[in-house]
């Protein structure tokens, strides 16, 4: 593995749900790469396939055709908890666990000693100014707080690739802007690549690169730095 190797490589990846007449093609064969430290917004309307692509990148789902590999990150089985952290769409905190326990959970799942995991969770919460809600249950949080806790949980893992699926989807504009600030700052601080799926153009504007998914097809515009055009659509 060298520094030039991408974190994620998708080659002719397709995902179809169901079979026969009722089959729904969520993604047509697409290819793309995500490099270290990149900031990418995956744009597109609801149902276009953004979440599916993110799940495939996270190793949470498997493609029905093509391959997804993680050259700089390792095998699928070791991605989570580990180098990839995922902020899910909608409420994603475990209801019976308090905020600190929620943030510590992926660390414990990854084999970190429970007391150390709690310490790291507190650090992460502190960074987001959430230490005061550490012993609250998810249902006692506002939507914005819950989403910030979910981001804190992702960052507590110190990932190399942070994926956020519609992280502002259920938030008002102001709160959403704060959440994006937090994500960008945290990713920069960690030196992690950040991929956010969103249908909000304002959020897209804040990230360096913007990919577009429409009807399961991905369009990757020319990299402004490399000044070379690249099309990943099938």
């Amino acid at each position, binding site marked *: 593995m060298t520094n030039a190797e991408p974190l994620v490589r998708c080659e002719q990846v397709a995902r179809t749900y169901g079979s026969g007449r009722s089959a729904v093609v969520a993604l047509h064969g697409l290819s793309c790469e995500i490099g270290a430290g990149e900031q990418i917004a995956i744009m597109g309307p609801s149902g276009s396939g953004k*979440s599916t692509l993110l*799940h495939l990148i*996270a190793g*949470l*789902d498997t493609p029905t055709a093509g391959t997804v590999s993680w050259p700089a990150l390792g095998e699928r089985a070791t*991605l*989570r*908890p*580990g180098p990839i952290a*995922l902020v*899910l*769409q*909608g*409420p*994603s*905190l*475990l*209801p*019976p*666990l*308090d905020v600190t*326990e929620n943030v*510590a*959970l*992926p660390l*414990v*799942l*990854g*084999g970190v*000693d*429970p007391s150390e995991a709690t310490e790291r969770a507190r650090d992460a919460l502190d960074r987001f100014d959430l230490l005061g809600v550490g012993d609250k*249950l998810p*249902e006692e949080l506002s939507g914005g707080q819950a989403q910030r806790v979910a981001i804190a*949980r992702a960052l507590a893992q110190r990932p190399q690739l942070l994926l956020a699926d519609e992280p502002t989807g259920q938030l008002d504009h102001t709160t959403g802007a704060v959440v994006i600030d937090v994500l960008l700052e945290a990713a920069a601080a960690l030196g992690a690549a950040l991929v956010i799926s969103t249908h909000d153009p304002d959020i897209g504007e804040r990230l360096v690169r913007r990919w577009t998914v429409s009807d399961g097809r991905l369009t990757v515009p020319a990299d402004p730095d490399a000044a070379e055009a690249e099309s990943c659509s099938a």
Partner: protein
Amino acid sequence: MLGLTWVRGAITRRFGRFLATAGGVAIAVALLASIGTFLAGSKATMTRRAVQNVSVDWQVEAQPGADPAKVLAGVSSRTTSALPVEFAKTPGLQATTGASTQSTGPGVVVGLPVSYSRTFPGVIRNLVGAPLGVLIAQQTAANLHVAPGDTVMIGRAGLAPTRVRIDGVVDVPQADSFFQKVGAPIGAQAHAPPDNVVFLPAATWHARFDRLAASRPDQVTMQVHARLSHALPGDPAAAYTRVTGSARSLEVLLAGAGLVGDNLGSTLAAARSDGLYAQVVFLFLGVPGAVLAGLLTAAVAASGADRRRREQALLRTRGATTTTLVRLSLLEAAVVGAIGALVGLGAAALVGTWAFGTASFGATTGAAIVWAVSAAAVGFGIAGLAVAVPAWRDARALTVVGARRVVGRARAPRWLRFGLDLLLLAGSALVFRLTSRNGYQLVLAPEGTPAISVSYWALAGPALLWSGAGLLAWRVAYLVLGSGRSFARRLARPFSGRLASTVGATMRRQRRLLAGALVLVALTTAFAASTAVFNSTYRAQAEIDARLTNGNDVTVTEPPGSNVGPAASAKLAAVAGVKSVEPLQHRYAYVGADLQDMFGVRTSTIVGATKLQDAYFKGGTARALMARLGREPNGVLVSAETVKDFQLQPGDTLRLRLQNGRTKQLTEVPFRYIGVATEFPTAPRDSFMLANASYIAQKTGSDAVGAFLIDTGGSSPAAVAANIRRQVGTTASVTDISKTRKLIGTSLTAVDLSGLTRVELGFALALAAAATGLVLALGFAERRRTFAIATALGAKPRQLGGFVWSEAAFVTAGGLAAGALTGWVLAEMLVKVLTGVFDPPPAALSVPWGYLAVVAGVAIAAVLVAGMMTIRRAQRAPVTVLRDL
């Protein structure tokens, strides 16, 4: 339209939960309908058996001075068949066989019409010789040493004896009622039927005794034996009312010319209280099962409460009013109730066919409809309570924020703060204590009165115990999980390792949910355990009852006056199938003026040979008291009644009068009172005495045996009895336990509870599987999103297993332990409260370990399946779950 769409959506989108809810309703309906079938069927069986057991329904005795012809006409007008029967007293019988002449004491000569044995087939049983003509009772034949063809002289008061030639030897199985003193109260009945009986054809009787009737009318009586229509109501109480009413009506018609000896009414009187006991058993054993099925249905429905709240919130945002939400839930409840009721009734019909041999829910069409409609109504009620009421409650208090609530901070419910569980348990103990004061007399059926009553109050004891124990289990589970982080962590550690702290926290916060699931497992286990123990104890006691009545597997009873000694045991022991033979002396002894049965036992062997129970004695175990009788040969065990009547103290001397074997005169024999015997094989239920056989033999000069109690050691008692009959001929009567089981009358132990047992134990297994596997599976299913999130965060199957197995183990182990304890206490209480069902009352519970192991096995297997399915599903498609929910 919206309603149909809603119901269709509920069925297709929540098919599993919908099916499980309807299944819970179906179990309750099927259980109630099945038990209704049993109840109706067993009551009808009791009536039928009571009727079958009576050979002569009525014995109407013509009163002195009455015209027998008019009495006969009167009885004939009210019955299906009636025949006159004449009775004449004889001062004695005499026969000369070979070189010896034998004489007997007083006896009875009965005149029977030729058609008597055809009309009343069960009264006289032909043993040897011709079935008609001059017949002599077996015991009399043995006393006189006569056989068919021999001649017997019949003494007549004030007249010369008359000579008859014996055609056959017979037995009178129901001699007590046949020779009853009509119209006399029970206490004034003769102690035993006459020893010496000769039956003559009516014409012969008239030829020999009409002169006696004219000269000594006090020496003869005339009865009309009658058979009634047996088209009686199935319920023994209703049948009793009809029969006794008819008897009183006949007496009015006869205007004092005849008194009715109502054998059928007396038998139905016993059966009617058994009928009520069957009803009480139904209430004790059946209702908890139905309540449990209702609770399970509610639990299944409640496991989808979060989703329902979310759906209601969505409907609200689209303009649905509270009324609309309630209507939709009522419609859903109605569909659940209808499907559950239909499936339940269908299942009950199948169960009825399999267990009771009938698919009907009642003895009559009307009863069947009542049972089916009642069971279905209960099903609809459960569906309404489980589905509609929570939905209505939520709809009234619904906010969108509230709909998102999944767990919440566990707050102690109000009943827990008020100690309702402890109050219920205290109430149970109080009611039980009050019930015990009247000796657990649940069914009160005073003799001769048509009214009978059940003390349903006694039901409150077990009911309060059941509910109190359930709530106490809830309290303990809730407090244990909430007692601190470390305790919950320790509980979870064996299954979750490093995750113990997280899993413990999850369990602690969901302690209300887990406590509820644990209570369901506990109540189901308690139901299964108490039912199984009760049924097992009942079966054991029924067997003991049959053994007590018959004496042992096979009993050879020598006729009174026989001189067969214990040495005859050897001959019997040589018969094929006989394992051991125990000789038992049977004498009569006067205690003051009271004549009682006295049994002489071989103290060294009697305990093992007859499986004597400690419950038969007071003042020591069976083994200890028999050993004491061996050490102190003049010891005697008497009845509690005798102790009370004669104010006996241990060590007191009792001077009894027994017949001397040589002189036939009564001899005074001193005994020392050492203990109380309440039951003994072949002994009567009231008063009797037990003493050392060697001592009795020494003091009376006779070692004559009354009965040989034979252990067949597993060989067929009927086959061994047949072998023995071939050997002993008519010199002794041979009975076997298989016949006795059927003959112990209309007592409830004769009613076959095995069908009910199969049904209840089957339902208990189904409930155990549902309470563990289904409830856990649905609870886990409701948290699919939680597991999917954990999987998305990187949880491996083993780690998900930590969550699943910790909860499952806590609920299952805690529930089984609490249930076993509750079941044991409940079974003790049930057996005590239902003492009247047991005859004799059991000394200890009979525990069916095999069945209980199966219940535990089924519960654990259901949990394993539910847990593994949950883990597999969470792993397989977390993305789908996250997208769908």
